[in-house]
């Protein structure tokens, strides 16, 4: 299968995602420039981490206007799997492809560390290979990952099981103590109602090799491979 990774000006985990998808997982991958309008035959699209346009206005606010985003939107509308990681998640929020918004981390500071995250739904293309309630260790590295949605939206997310990942402790327990940034309901990642667009703050692409501290993130990419295989069957 083919992962297309969009490169925005200021993306800094674009190559990490490309490397994980290609060299580590062994699938086809392409880097797609944000000014392009063609996704190069993607089976799945990744909007990578980084600081698109410096994040100077709001995270993801300017990137959503990039020419490639119409193609990403159209791809998602056709049911294509789209994964937004960190800044990519923020871009999905700003573009309205996912509900809610990000505010500054509750303790203001940038947080960078390996954190446990519990998988809340296995019926998305990026969690299909996960076990129920599996705990994954993945790095977070962000200053604005404090997820917010108004009460109705939040209730809707929960009711529709659109919360895909929550910050947890190593045993999968969810508590304020395991919340790294103040996100409502410990939300680390969500999906759209159609479940094909997923955004998360932790970095699965940086957790695909044990040598680097964790290989837990592989299952996210492997899920896409599995989901695609079952689709084409």
């Amino acid at each position, binding site marked *: 299968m083919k992962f297309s990774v969009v490169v925005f000006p200021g993306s800094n985990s674009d190559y990490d995602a490309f490397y994980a998808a290609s060299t580590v997982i062994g699938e086809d991958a392409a880097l797609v420039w944000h000014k392009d309008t063609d996704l190069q035959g993607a089976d799945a699209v990744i909007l990578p981490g980084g600081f698109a346009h410096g994040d100077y206005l709001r995270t993801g606010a300017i990137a959503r206007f990039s020419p490639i985003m119409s193609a990403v939107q159209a791809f998602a509308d056709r049911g294509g799997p789209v994964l937004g990681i960190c800044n990519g998640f923020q871009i999905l929020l700003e573009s309205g492809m996912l509900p809610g918004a990000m505010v500054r981390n509750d303790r203001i500071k*940038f947080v960078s560390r390996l954190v446990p995250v519990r998988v809340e739904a296995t019926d998305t293309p990026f969690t299909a290979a996960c076990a129920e309630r599996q705990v994954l260790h993945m790095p977070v590295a962000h200053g604005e990952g404090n997820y917010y949605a108004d009460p109705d939206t939040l209730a809707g997310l929960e009711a529709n099981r659109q919360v895909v990942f929550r910050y947890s402790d190593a045993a999968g327990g969810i508590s304020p103590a395991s919340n790294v940034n103040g996100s409502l309901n410990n939300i680390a990642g969500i999906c759209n109602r159609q479940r094909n667009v997923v955004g998360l703050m932790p970095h699965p692409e940086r957790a695909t090799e044990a040598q680097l501290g964790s290989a837990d993130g592989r299952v996210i990419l492997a899920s896409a491979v599995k989901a695609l295989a079952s689709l084409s069957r």
Partner: protein
Amino acid sequence: MAVIDAAVLERHGIKPDEYERILELMGREPNLLELGLFSVMWSEHCSYKSSRVHLKTLPTTGPRVVQGPGENAGAVDIGGGLCAVFKIESHNHPSFIEPYQGAATGVGGIIRDIFTMGARPIALLNALRFGSLETQQARRIFEGVVAGVGGYGNSIGIPTVGGEIVFDEMYAGNPLVNVLCLGISRIDGIVKGAAKGAGNPVFYVGAKTGRDGIHGATMASAEFDEKSAEKRPAVQVGDPFMEKLLMEACIEVMKTGAVLGIQDMGAAGLSCATSEMGSRGGVGMTIDVMHVPQRETGMTPYEIMLSESQERMLLVVEKGREHEVEAVFEKWDLHAVQVGEVIEGSRLKIHERGVLVADVPNRALTDEAPVYRRPMQEPAWQQGVQRLTLDDLGAPPSAQSAFDRLLTVPTIASKRWAYGQYDHSVGTNTIAQPGMSAAVVRVKGTTTGLAVSVDGNGRFCYLDPHRGAMLAVAEAARNVACAGGEPIGGTNNLNFGNPERPEIMWQLGEAVRGIGEACRALGIPITGGNVSLYNETEGRAIFPTPVLGVVGLLEDASKTTTRTFKQPGASVVLLGDNLGELGGSEYLATLHGLVAGQPPALDLSREAAIQKLIVSLIREGSVESAHDCSEGGLAVTLAECAFNSGGIGVTADIAGVRLKPDTTSDVASGSDVASGSDVASGFSRTFSVNATLFGESASRIVVSASGERLDGVLAAAKAAGVTATVIGQTGGDRIRLSVNGTAVVDSAVAAAEQAWSTSIASRMAGRAPR
């Protein structure tokens, strides 16, 4: 007509005899713009006029050296046609004036030095010094610097993988911010900062030029006084997004082969880039300031040439291939504009709308800058501070209370509060993260890895700059070796006071002599560095603080280890000799309020032997953990091996050092401490225990090894002539230390780790960022 009188010269920081030299080199009176060029280029920061004669003595060659000092960064061969490109740079003065932006632009500056060489930056480290965290001012500066380091590095996407932070009142009015950047390049892909070929166009790309930082270089070369406040507009604001675009575009554009030379505009901006590129290439250069993109209206040629606006580059492009270069920059929404061209001869000619406004031989600005052999004089107080007697100390604390106290001293406590704000996983190369002593990054596409460490001990250098500097080299190299890296190259940042004072100059000379000696003995060529002088406030200098950055090669990046114990039941072995040297130790400073004595002795051949030994033990997989002994001595080292291990404790019994006059001669504190005549024997017994646990003797490493591997470790040590002593076992959930069989420290790992890991955070609590 410009009137150049004494006041104008003084404002430009040019001494009368320097002006005489300018007149001679120019063959006429310079105009104000020309004087401005000399002023910045002949500043201490750009010309190294005080340090150059000393730097010349450093070893800079070796079989692996691809690029020694003199270029934007040094480079060493790491095999497979690749080289490691690295350099360290300081931003001390700007960080005092505006901590966030000062630190951020410091990071930006060193990153440019690396990608200017054609290398892709893959790691950042920093060495920081602040005043005591008990003061509001130090907390504010610390908070701002850490946020600035993170703000820039995180955004541009280069992981900050390591560093060191020391707190001492001596840095209260003059913090140190030294940043090292490491990049990887193909050896044949290295691009230099030299102009070539008359007729080739000179391009400018990056941020527009504003009035910021004018005379930044001269500021970095002057002491602080109350008037520094007036120099404040010199602060520059960093734009990591612009730099990210520049970095990607420059790396891409250099692959076209159309770029013949490239240099970033750092200190002294366009003046430096144009004259240095011309002089390195043995050609001249002409530019017209009218073409320079400007952020503000009405800028004069003087302001344009001296501006230190960040995130700008100057390129010499092969004539006829301009469009290839422009196309790449356009892709990244950057507009490269031609500002001039390379010309025959050796002059820098600056025009304003076609009118020649400055015409200077470029070598006059660079190579012909003055070189001073400034007078050096050992300070009168030097011998005095090296004396240490038991009488000076008063009643010693118990080992347990000293241990508890040392674990929470900010210099020893976990620095997670700081590095938790640094993205260290971006780039997916980071094998050993911050907090694990040396950082280890892999080199994608190969099996190799690089270990990097930055170290310096201002206290040791204050007590003895020569030995202190040697110890800094040894420690940086030892840290790299403890991660399995064979040291292959070094860089250094010399942070000192006012070189016009003979005592400071003596410290500098002694320190450089020490660095040279140690690097020669350990086979570490120095490939570059930086000198930061005038680190004083109101006449009070910082501790002389040379910071060493050492890069080590791991042929197999999977064969590395960290400081932490890996399993219970392993034997804990001390490699090296425990000499109980308390001179200049953290123990003395923290528990007795004393910075005195002689720094630990260093036998460079023993140091080389222990480093070789540890590298081979790690390569063979014989040891599970390895940790160098430094601040806080053996006791703190053992505790640190237990911390972050998942709670694996340790039980160790250590042979006490004897505080007798007849102990080995160079053990200064050991022998002197005993010379206190009428001290109760209880006191001296406690001192002996404390010296055993907290002395900071060099050339020591604590390793752990399990089962039959232990014998191999002991045999290898014996063969290498390194003392190896089994001092205990890992396991349990406590840190239990005894000396000569008497229990002296017994702490739960969890409680000790909690105290150690939260000490800085709790000191910082309640302070908000700006």
